[in-house]
């Protein structure tokens, strides 16, 4: 539909897996950083510079 695959992530982490949590936060942040700001689903006139 035009939303980049890397914008939405799913994961499965147990409450004991804090190391995995930190890993996934890093992965997700990196993936979104690569894609750059989300322009598509934001109304143009509402956007603040």
């Amino acid at each position, binding site marked *: 539909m035009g939303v980049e695959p890397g*914008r939405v992530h799913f994961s*499965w982490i147990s409450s004991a897996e804090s190391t995995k949590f930190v890993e996934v936060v890093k992965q997700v942040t990196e993936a979104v950083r690569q894609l*750059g700001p989300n322009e598509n689903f934001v109304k143009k006139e509402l956007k603040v510079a």
Partner: protein
Amino acid sequence: MAQWEPKIVAFLCNWCSYGAADLAGVSRMEYPPNIRVIRIPCTGRMSPKFALAALREGADGVWVSG
């Protein structure tokens, strides 16, 4: 604008990832400060509406974790 930082909305299950986030905090682990956590009672509470609402409100990414 200074260096652009992504804003990521994280929907975390109360019993799983939210607990993991809590444990990570208690254990003083470091992780990127880009996520904004929303606690949901269970991943079953997740709805496609939430993901879309986050993107519409200007989030750069959405992360759902059970």
